[in-house]
């Protein structure tokens, strides 16, 4: 054709890379543009997107660092001679994590090369529906044309710019994982899962951490009960919470500490405290500003700024598609971006008609006590089917490993939402406990296959595990009976 490439992907993250590599498998000419605009604090990173560099990967590794700290404390009860208290050195952890991330950057580069995908480290913007121009860091301009273009530029953390000093003195998750020195006494602000996960591992490695939240935790997860259990556990774990508070200003003190002033909505008071680090986790904004979408007419949601797509990931402009965090109404998850990217490539070049199925996508919040879920929340199920038509089974359980270690299991909880009538199909499963992500993954398959409560009752549990508690669910919320599991 007259264009340089069959497919141009803008954004080398989870979705973009998967789409590009899949398209190349069909023998197509494919190019990927990736560029990382440094954060306001100056942090930048390599190829691979948010997940690899400032999301899932470093987050999970630091979560693991914190869990190991807890394991060291438990170890005494199991006979290990470990002098307490144990100390953690941020720079050792950070170096290891950052080195691993850099090896992934290289791995992605090699993969693109092996799959014959052309890579440009440039920041692209549209000139017309088939033309993207970009500047290298050195300022050299490159123009690329393609038959099809996929926008996969993802998002970046927002700053609460109405709070004085927020931009100058605060960091975000973009910066946290790349810090060379310990963040010290930290205030991750507002409540989204990013804030809880970060506060969780920071507390776990021994840092004085406070979370400030204006409203309810885990808004968007629609899980009032699960969210409060998660935060309750974090409180008993050592994270401080300032509930119903919102910051009004951040100032730098002479000793380089940061002074935060906030309003307490309940008490109507104004309070201050000083911290080494303020981290904002107030949501993520789609990275569309420099794409010049207006020039080509790609429509975005006026409220969120995200790109509007249909079920086939098509935008309002023919031959321009979008996948991943940048798209409106989609989960902000790596696996969905990857799957959507691959299916899109298959539809474009592989004679497939299969669309991405966004239903029953499992996910997990990696707080110190993890929360994994798949399917509908209790609230969503009630809304969709009516309270009379659903049955909620639940149990408070105690992981065996917690017993000898004398650990508090008050928030270890599992809840299953089912239809009440007919075959009693399972609509949603929610679990708080160690390794919740590992547990929920298998059940996601069951739900995908339309598993029912009677089938679950026939499923034998593996003993002794936490996962078996799912198969033992018998007590309903409706009955009002005590849902605490007694030992075997």
């Amino acid at each position, binding site marked *: 054709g007259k264009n340089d490439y069959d497919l141009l992907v803008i954004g080398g993250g989870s979705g973009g890379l998967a789409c590009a590599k899949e398209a190349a498998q069909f023998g197509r000419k494919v190019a990927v543009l990736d560029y990382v605009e440094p954060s306001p604090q100056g942090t930048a990173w390599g190829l691979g997107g948010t997940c690899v560099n400032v999301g899932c990967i470093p987050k999970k590794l630091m979560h693991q660092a914190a869990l190991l700290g807890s394991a060291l404390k438990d170890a005494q009860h199991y006979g290990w001679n470990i002098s307490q208290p144990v100390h953690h050195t941020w720079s050792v952890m950070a170096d290891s994590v950052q080195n691993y991330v*850099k090896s992934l950057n290289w791995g992605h*580069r*090699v993969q693109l090369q092996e799959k014959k995908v052309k890579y440009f480290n440039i920041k692209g913007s549209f000139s017309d529906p088939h033309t993207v121009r970009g500047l290298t860091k050195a300022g050299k301009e490159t123009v690329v044309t393609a038959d099809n273009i996929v926008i996969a530029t993802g998002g970046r953390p927002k700053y609460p710019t109405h709070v004085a000093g927020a931009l100058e003195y605060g960091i975000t998750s973009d910066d946290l994982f790349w810090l060379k020195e310990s963040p010290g006494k930290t205030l991750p602000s507002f409540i989204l899962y990013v804030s809880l996960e970060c506060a969780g591992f920071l507390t776990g490695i021994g840092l004085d951490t406070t979370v400030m939240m204006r409203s309810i935790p885990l808004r968007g997860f629609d899980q009032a009960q699960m969210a409060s259990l998660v935060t309750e556990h974090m409180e008993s774990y050592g994270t401080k919470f300032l509930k119903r508070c919102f910051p009004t200003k951040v100032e730098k003190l002479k000793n380089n500490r940061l002074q935060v002033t906030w309003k307490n909505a309940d008490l109507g008071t104004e309070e201050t405290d000083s911290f080494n680090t303020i981290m904002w986790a107030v949501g993520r904004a789609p990275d569309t500003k420099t794409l010049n979408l207006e020039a080509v007419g790609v429509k975005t949601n006026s409220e969120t700024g995200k790109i509007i797509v249909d079920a086939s990931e098509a935008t309002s402009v023919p031959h321009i598609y979008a996948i991943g965090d940048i798209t409106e109404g989609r989960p902000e998850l790596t696996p969905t971006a990857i799957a959507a990217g691959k299916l899109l490539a298959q539809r474009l070049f592989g004679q497939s008609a299969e669309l991405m199925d966004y239903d029953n996508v499992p996910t997990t919040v990696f707080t110190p006590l993890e929360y994994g879920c798949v399917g509908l929340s209790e609230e969503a199920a009630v809304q969709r089917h009516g309270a009379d038509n659903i049955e909620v089974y639940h149990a408070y359980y105690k992981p065996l490993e917690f017993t000898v270690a004398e650990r508090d299991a008050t928030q270890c909880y599992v809840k299953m939402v089912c239809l009440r009538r007919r075959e009693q199909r399972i609509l949603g499963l929610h679990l708080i406990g160690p390794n919740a992500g590992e547990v929920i993954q298998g059940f996601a398959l069951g739900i995908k296959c339309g598993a029912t409560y009677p089938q679950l009752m026939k499923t034998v549990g593996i003993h002794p595990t936490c996962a078996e508690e799912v198969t033992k669910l018998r007590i309903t919320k409706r009955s009002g009976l005590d849902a605490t599991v007694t030992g075997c």
Partner: protein
Amino acid sequence: MAQRLALQRLLSLPTRGLLAPHGRAFGTSAGRRNTFNVQDGSDFQDRVVNSPKPIVVDFHAQWCGPCKILGPRLEKLVAKLEGKVLMAKVDIDDHTDLAIEYEVSAVPTVLAMKNGDVVDKFVGVKDEDQLEAFLKKLIGA
């Protein structure tokens, strides 16, 4: 750069007597002149591809733990050979194009080159015996 190259040529002349009083310093400077960091593509062309002597190329990265073990180990053995073989070090993040061109996927990757051709290669850490054999094969063959 030009001064350093001139110095290298000077040192490789059989007039070792010039530096004899500084016996130990000569030893370390011999190590230094036999190993160098590649500066860019044309430097690679000049000093590696067009190297008059057999040369090993150590592709490494800052984030690579095993590289920090292999690098010094290989350097030490190259120094022992007193100029019979040279060693070039390439940081793959600084010289991605070069690493991609030579099909480096994992690090450390070490190439043995003679007259611009890759005659041998290994990936990962090797012990001293294995490295000695690798170097001897390069010089001997």
